[in-house]
């Protein structure tokens, strides 16, 4: 093919690709029902919301429009003042989407209600800082504490450990989310698994400017989930309830234990009290849902609803970290333990994140447990 012809063909294809990308971006911005991602990744805290957001978003899970405001640090909270006012106890709460709670107005989420209940019980000012971000893992939370939260001089840190997802999110074997993670090195020390700088930079740019980039990630994730569900109805993360431990889960528990030990070491060094709260999944509370998981898991599995809570309790006990499981209070609040019982629903649509009643219940349970336990740092 002569050079001019080749150049013309190449130019034509470049124009075609540009037009296609433009059309895809336009279609996504005009017609997509997939919500724009409000999360961005960085090496300082691993993952955070886009900073200084102030918008209203339709949330499909709660089927309503919810205001979403984030502070300049990229978390769903008021602006934080670096120096802690005197007489105020600061508690930093880490967690994933259960704590970020995009589907619920901010004044009704666990963090806000916890602040209210603690002030009522303790009779003194408490400031609860919301470090919750969707998709956050314990390893990321350690990095976020180290690089950011510790600078605000908290008196206590609460890690809200989601039994249905945090274990798999910690492990590169069990989750392929490109998030900041840790691994146990040959020397037994925790070491971060770095995402390459160019991939990070590229991802940040695309995240910020391209709605189509967000959309295609969402679509691919959904497709892969459906494909996996077709092959294996039980999602990998739901195997956390299988007491016949898969070696990958065994290693994930070891890694989680190591991360929590490191967390304890760093918070102790800073004079900060560390607490761990298990956030239950709806399937742990509702028998009908857990029965479905057991059916999907098959006869070779030994599914136990309390298995992850028990493992976490053991890890915390060994590390000297006070641990609370919310499964008990949630089961007491839903004695029928049937997700179809509308009056006892504590999760959105009976199966997802906490609804407002769930947030309130969790806040009450944690505040009753914490009352009197949180010291004030000098």
């Amino acid at each position, binding site marked *: 093919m002569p050079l001019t012809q080749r150049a013309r063909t190449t130019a*034509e*294809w470049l*124009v*075609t690709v*540009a*037009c*296609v990308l*433009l*059309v*895809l971006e336009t*279609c*996504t911005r005009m*017609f*997509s*029902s*997939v919500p724009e991602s409000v999360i961005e990744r960085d090496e300082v805290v691993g993952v955070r919301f886009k900073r200084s957001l102030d918008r209203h978003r339709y949330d499909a899970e709660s089927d309503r429009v919810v205001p979403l405001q984030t502070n300049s640090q990229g978390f769903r909270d008021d602006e934080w003042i670096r120096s802690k006012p005197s007489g105020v106890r600061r508690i930093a709460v880490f967690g994933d989407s259960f704590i970020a709670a995009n589907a619920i107005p901010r004044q009704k989420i666990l963090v806000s209600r916890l602040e209210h209940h603690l002030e009522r019980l303790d009779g003194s000012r408490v400031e609860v800082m919301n470090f919750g971000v969707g998709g956050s893992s314990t390893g990321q939370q350690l990095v976020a504490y180290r690089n950011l939260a510790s600078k605000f001089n908290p008196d206590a840190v609460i890690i809200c450990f989601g039994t249905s997802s945090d274990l798999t999110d910690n492990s590169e074997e069990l989750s392929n989310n490109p998030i900041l993670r840790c691994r146990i090195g040959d020397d037994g020390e925790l070491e971060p698994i770095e995402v390459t700088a160019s991939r990070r930079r590229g991802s940040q740019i695309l995240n910020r400017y391209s709605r189509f980039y967000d*959309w295609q990630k969402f*679509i691919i994730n*959904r*497709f892969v989930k*459906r*494909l996996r569900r*077709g092959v294996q109805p039980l999602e990998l993360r739901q195997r956390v309830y299988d007491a016949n431990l898969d070696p990958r889960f065994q290693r994930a528990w070891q890694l989680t234990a190591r991360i929590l030990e490191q967390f304890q070491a760093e918070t102790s060094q800073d004079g900060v009290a560390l607490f761990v709260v298990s956030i239950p999944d709806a399937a742990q509370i509702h028998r009908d849902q857990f029965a479905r998981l057991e059916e999907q898991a098959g006869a070779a599995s030994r599914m136990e609803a309390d298995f992850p809570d028990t493992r976490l309790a053991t890890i915390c006990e060994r590390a000297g970290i006070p641990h609370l499981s919310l499964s008990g209070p949630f089961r007491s609040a839903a004695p029928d333990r049937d997700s179809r019982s509308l009056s006892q629903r504590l999760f959105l649509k009976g199966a997802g994140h906490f609804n407002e009643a769930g947030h309130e219940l969790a806040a009450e349970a944690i505040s009753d447990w914490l009352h009197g336990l949180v010291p004030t740092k000098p």
Partner: protein
Amino acid sequence: MSFTSIAFLVFLPVVWAAYWGLRRREWQNLLLVCASYVFYGWWDERFCILMLTSSLVDYWLGLALGPLSPDSDRQETGSAVSGRRRLLLGMSLACNLGLLGVFKYFGFFVDSFQASAAFLGWSPGGVTLEIILPVGISFYTFQTLSYTIDVYRGRLVPTRNLVDYLAFVSFFPQLVAGPIERASRLLPQFQQSRCWERDAIGAGLRQMLWGLFKKVVIADTLAGPVAAGFASPETTGGPRLMVVTVLFAYQIYCDFSGYSDIAIGTARLFGITLMRNFAYPYFSQSIVEFWQRWHISLSTWFRDYVYIVIGGNRGGRVQTWRNAILTFLVSGLWHGAAWRFVAWGGLHGVSLVALPRPTAKVQIDQPGGARLVPHLAVLLRMILVFSLVCAFWVFFRANSLADAWLILTVMATQLHDVQAFRELLLEYQAGGPLFEITHLLIVFVVVEWLGRHKAHPLEIPGWPQPVRWSIYAALGWFVVEYSGRGESSPFIYFQF
């Protein structure tokens, strides 16, 4: 396995790659047979036994008929030969129609018999059979029947190659919902080598994309409001029922023609050409023209194997009308084992004979004429025919004859309900689902109108490359986006 399932997304490329990796026609046909049985057995493996039985019976009967056909070399004449030929054909008819009768119509016949007996004051004992209706049985039995009938008539030499024959019957793109192919058209394609043609592959992919767009974006979006509207007609109100009926007209059109497009496009990927099944039926100017554009493979099948056989237009006017109405009644029954389908067919038959016929021959490639902006008379005729077809669709979609009658009555008596029209307008202005659906349909109708002189509007190989690929990208985007919005509804014609 549905065309819009993830399983098919994996199945098709694997089969396609293996197909073109095999150089020899015989191996390709064998692969197609195996793949087609896997495709069909994905619903229920028992269905495969049924299809295989039906195929083998007609294969052997075809071989037995061959030497006895009028054009065979062995020119035995006489009533004995005619008798044997008719016996063999009768066996084929009995087998195929018997399968349909048992699996599709048994319950209907029993219920109708009991209803008639009750009317006469007699209550015979009920006989019930729990039978699953095998997907596609109405399609492949008609296809195999066309084979034996054409062999009987001497129009086709029966094949001695079982694999070729099985490939013709079970060819997966058209197995469960057509187009219903004639053996004289499709079987030779399996008996010849197929060539890899890049243009044909491209054309096939374009047609598949267009079919997916119609099914996933339009038909599935309309399914929800249609189901809600027809579920409780007594409370839905006249104006909303009118809207919902129009929506159903487009739902069934996009669903079925979408399936046909995917089937035809998929077949082209394998070097096989299937017949066109839809030719812009809603741009028809008469009921006669409508049936030359809607489900063409079925309407021509009934024309050739029922209408002409029972006399066609060879008698006087009254016999012609009788034959046409009978044919449509049977066609209605083919669509479903319920009296409302028979009523639907009958209405089409009556309107076909009662309404004025077009004076000129229908030009299949020029629906609505050649002008960009149609004549007022053409436009009015198209609207009238569309309105009539929509009214008949009520019988097709309603849950029962009584419901269909109720819906039509409500529509007719509540046309003056201004408040209901106002509510619909407010709903549209609020930007809800009605807004989205209205704009989707307007764009769709305009695109179809502009592309009506081609087999489908996406036949644009001559357009500039950036424009073509931008259109493909946009359509693909919509298919992916809408496939995630709620549950995909099954193809409507799977139930037939």
